């Protein structure tokens, strides 16, 4: 069989909705695209813990603190599911992490914006996690099996993230004048970056067409963005707040909301590393990695000691 034959068998599987599993033949470009996308996604989960972690010690109540800790812990778990899915494609965890720390790998630009007030935590849950969910729900049907399975798991947990964020904003929106202003201010600052999360216009997106053919993606950037806008316009009414876009208007013909143009200069600046917090985020990641060195060494030493003088691990007997 020639490589063309393999290619055809592969595409036939995709067209017939048969998932691709780790040991199946796949074109190198499919493998690379998935490695790139899944690892970016994993990095986003991990870096995404930073802006929120910033507020754990300053959450306004014990309840909010417990919720925020649970959410940040979830993000760590999501990172792990995704790193594991990525590894099935033949890249080691170490390589993936090194690519993040060296700046070679990208993560979602949204996390390069600062969290200035408590309301930002609510806005992140509602808008940022809301935008992420649009993408992730689509990805539960992606063609690569391990990625799709990780997404199913993530989506189950993600809904809590969005709801707690919206509820947190709801409390502020019914509070004092200052709280209302804080809520509106956070929405103003997070709205546009949230729209940017869906990536460039379809016409500008270099990866989109092939990814659709391979069913890695099933909706285009612009479709997902439109769905998100339509959803938020209704939700913001419940908050009695405004989305910061004068051009938002129902379009009867399209049966969608029209909205203003994203500031693409800002988008590309942040992607290229010139956002408000790019340096800070990567420094924080590297610092965490370096300062965890002794923990990794200690765990390795402990395991080695056990290997030399084995003990039955707790739970091993019941396993049989």
């Amino acid at each position, binding site marked *: 069989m020639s*490589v063309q034959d393999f290619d055809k068998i592969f595409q036939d599987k995709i067209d017939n909705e048969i998932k691709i*599993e780790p040991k199946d033949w796949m074109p190198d470009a499919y493998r690379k695209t998935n490695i790139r996308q899944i690892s970016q996604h994993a990095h986003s989960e991990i870096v995404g813990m930073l802006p929120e972690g910033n507020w754990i010690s300053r959450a306004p109540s014990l309840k909010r603190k417990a919720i925020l800790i649970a959410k940040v812990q979830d993000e760590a778990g999501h990172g792990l599911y995704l790193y594991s899915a990525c590894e*099935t494609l033949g890249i080691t965890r170490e390589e993936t992490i090194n690519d993040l720390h060296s700046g070679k790998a990208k993560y979602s630009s949204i996390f390069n914006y600062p969290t200035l007030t408590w309301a930002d935590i609510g806005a992140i849950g509602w808008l940022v996690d809301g935008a992420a969910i649009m993408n992730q729900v689509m990805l539960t049907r992606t063609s690569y099996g391990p990625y799709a399975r990780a997404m199913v798991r993530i989506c189950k947990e993600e809904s809590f993230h969005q709801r707690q964020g919206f509820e947190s904003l709801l409390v502020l929106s019914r509070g004092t004048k200052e709280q209302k202003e804080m809520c509106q201010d956070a929405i103003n600052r997070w709205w546009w970056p949230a729209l940017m999360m869906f990536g460039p216009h379809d016409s500008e997106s270099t990866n989109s067409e092939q990814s659709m053919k391979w069913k890695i993606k099933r909706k285009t950037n612009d479709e997902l963005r439109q769905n998100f806008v339509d959803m938020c316009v209704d939700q913001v009414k419940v908050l009695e707040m405004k989305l910061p876009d004068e051009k938002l208007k129902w379009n009867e013909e399209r049966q969608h909301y029209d909205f203003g143009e994203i500031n693409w200069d800002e988008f590309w600046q942040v992607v290229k590393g010139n956002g408000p917090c790019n340096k800070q985020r990567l420094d924080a990641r590297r610092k965490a990695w370096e300062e965890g060195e002794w923990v990794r060494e200690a765990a390795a*030493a402990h395991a080695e000691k056990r290997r030399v003088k084995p003990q039955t691990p707790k739970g091993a007997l019941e396993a049989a």
Partner: protein
Amino acid sequence: MMKDFIRKFYYGDIPEEKGGNNNSPLGDGGKSDWPLWEVFIRSKQGLDHKHVGSLHATDAQMAIENARDVYTRRMEGVSIWVVESKHIHATKPEEAGELYEPAADKIYRHPTFYDLPDEVNQM
């Protein structure tokens, strides 16, 4: 010819005997990745353990503790198995034909193959 196009990878999900990181984990003082473990969870009494994912850990105890933290935060399980990925042996996709096709033309092995009068209830 096949060999030229099929690259093998030994990580995650359905690994082979060389799965996981390497055969002498931690030989380098833990500088590189820890061994890979596959995690299986029994969601409630009476059900099978089911594969849920994988993680890296230095030893079985750490693998179980991490699996608890990652895969059972919302009461998803009452029992956890972990097994180092390299110990799992698996069939290869290219053997699928010879392994599974012989079953395809034996429809008489299914109850629906047998057409019985309606009077024969519940059989």
